[in-house]
């Protein structure tokens, strides 16, 4: 039988340049590089190792939260509770260590477990009831916020053991001081970049975000995967809690109040789609750097902080517009 081959479109194999241009992280990356070039030209202090180290150090907390946020958003969910969970985790770590007499390592472990439990509860409610992630995490935001203030009794916790702030210490690299915490954040980004792009688990996460039904029909245990993702995001928020403590040197019950939206901003700026299934943590890393570079650069230029908020808003709207347009034509 001479079957006629299906005469499919003669699509050319994409060249490297074309593929690069079609990648959702390319736009953000070019924006980041342009911003860096711009600030290098307009301020004397921007282009220096010390300043870049500072920028990374300043974005490490929100950046780490944004890793967890990326996991959730890839499943077409959203996590409004991340900042509050981190704040509660940081108070648990700080208070149990400074006032409860727990050894620092035990306190940190407890903080991670508490954060993971918040993630687990989010995941169970989203998957098993099921409830919309927006509502579940909005509720959990309030629960974690309230617990933070109840447990801390509104008091900032000072005189922490040195081990808790160790990640805030620096080491010299050339003549630049690098914070250990920055390395933790970068390592987490690399770890999750690999896990999402190089393992079956990552493939399943993307498939789940594209279509939970398709994922299930292909034998992926979507329920377990979803709950696991929320729990894992909780653990990441716990790490962010430790980084937060190391950065500020205290346990601050007021911390993290806008970090949920800041992390979503970073994820969206990095080209990850709020509709799920598209994006990457490396994009998110670029997204947090965009926010950090603009804040730092504008401040070095002496521009009032309210304009930083303005430009972040403009960039976010731009990023979701690009996402929406590229999705529509994909149909």
């Amino acid at each position: 039988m001479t079957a006629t081959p299906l005469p499919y479109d003669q699509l050319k194999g994409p060249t490297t340049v074309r593929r690069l241009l079609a990648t959702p992280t390319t736009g953000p990356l070019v924006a980041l590089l342009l911003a860096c070039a711009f600030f290098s030209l307009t301020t004397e202090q921007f282009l220096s190792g010390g300043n870049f180290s500072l920028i990374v150090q300043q974005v490490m907390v929100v950046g780490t939260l944004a890793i967890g946020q990326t996991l959730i958003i890839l499943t077409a969910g959203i996590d409004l509770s991340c900042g509050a969970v981190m704040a509660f985790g940081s108070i648990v770590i700080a208070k149990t260590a400074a006032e409860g007499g727990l050894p620092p390592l035990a306190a940190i472990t407890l903080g991670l477990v508490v954060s993971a439990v918040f993630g687990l509860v989010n995941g169970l409610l989203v998957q098993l009831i099921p409830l919309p992630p927006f509502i579940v995490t909005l509720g959990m935001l309030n629960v974690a916020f309230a617990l933070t203030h109840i447990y801390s009794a509104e008091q900032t916790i000072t005189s922490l053991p040195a081990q808790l702030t160790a990640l805030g210490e620096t080491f010299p690299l050339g003549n630049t001081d690098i914070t250990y915490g920055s390395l933790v954040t970068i390592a987490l980004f690399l770890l999750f970049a690999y896990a999402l792009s190089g393992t079956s688990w990552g493939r399943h996460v993307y498939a789940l975000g594209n279509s939970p039904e398709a994922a299930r029909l292909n034998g992926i245990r979507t329920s377990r995967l979803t709950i696991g993702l929320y729990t894992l995001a909780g653990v990441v928020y716990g790490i962010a809690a430790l980084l937060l403590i190391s950065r500020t040197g205290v346990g601050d019950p007021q911390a993290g109040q806008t970090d949920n939206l800041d992390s979503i901003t970073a994820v969206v700026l990095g080209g990850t789609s709020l509709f799920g299934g598209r994006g990457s943590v490396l994009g998110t890393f670029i997204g947090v750097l965009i926010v950090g570079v603009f804040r730092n650069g504008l401040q070095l230029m002496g521009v009032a902080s309210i304009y930083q908020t303005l430009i972040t808003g403009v960039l976010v709207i731009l990023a979701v517009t690009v996402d929406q347009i590229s999705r529509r034509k994909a149909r």
Partner: protein
Amino acid sequence: MLRRNRTIRASIGFTALAAVSALTLTACGSGAQGGSGGGGTKVGLITKTDTNPFFVKMKEGAEQAAKDNGVELVSAAGKFDGDNAGQVTAIENMVNSGVKGILITPNDSKAIVPALQKARAKGVLVIALDSPTEPQDATDALFATDNVKAGELIGRYAKAAMAGKAAKIATLDLAPGVAVGVQRHQGFLNGFGVAEGAPSIVCMQDTGGDQAKGQAAMENCLQKSPDINVVYTINEPAALGAYTALKAKGLEKKVLVVSVDGGCTGTKAVKEGKIAATSQQYPLEMASQGVKAVADFAKGGKKASGYTDTGVTLITDAAEPGVDAKDTAYGLEKCWG
């Protein structure tokens, strides 16, 4: 094919707009900067937020003083009241940009301390404005209103105005553990001559200094004790909230409301009789003295140190004998916001 071209266009659009926004903002920035540059000395001002009129006035004072002293002012603010991380970031960026001194109204009096210590270790003069850090010597100097005195003034005024009548007091406070709120509250009780926990204090509620919460707090207090006749409020928004609640019950003429701040809206409310008296403070003064101190330090002068009282004045149109006060005409001239 079409799809790819559009993606390319979208990417280019994104970057182009990012670049344009950056350029536009530069223009805005340099516009706002106009005239305050020069001299090579930079002074940083970090306020709690940049939306509260109190801090807007503070910034105005700093800008004027920067011009007068030939220094450049860079400013930043936390994103919300209580945002410590944002202030830490601002301190780091300012130190990196080479400021000679930083003026700061700390959002968290304890949490900000490590960042300030790092700045001071690099030779930056740090002055707290409006509210102290804990410990207070974490900054080189403090330029602020004496909040205890501010409370005392309205306490003494309220005592005199009551003229011996039995007082039923409600206090609409800030939030637990915040120094400013505790000091004003304590000052008021001292001035009025009642002890904490005295039976005449019938209701204590936190308002966060917010008008809507102030109103809700007053409504709840009135539910509990309808015979309240003295209301202490942490600030004028809380006082105006309380007034709204009182008016709804027809009690606005029978209850004495006193407050602290001296904002223009608040001072007008004193003139209109909604608030009986308020202790006016001077944010502009704090900032301009702060900028001058940094400028002097840059010229080789001494580091500012210790506590400087930037003054507080009781504003009322119904002065009581024995309590120093100025009328609202004076208050409106000096008010902020």
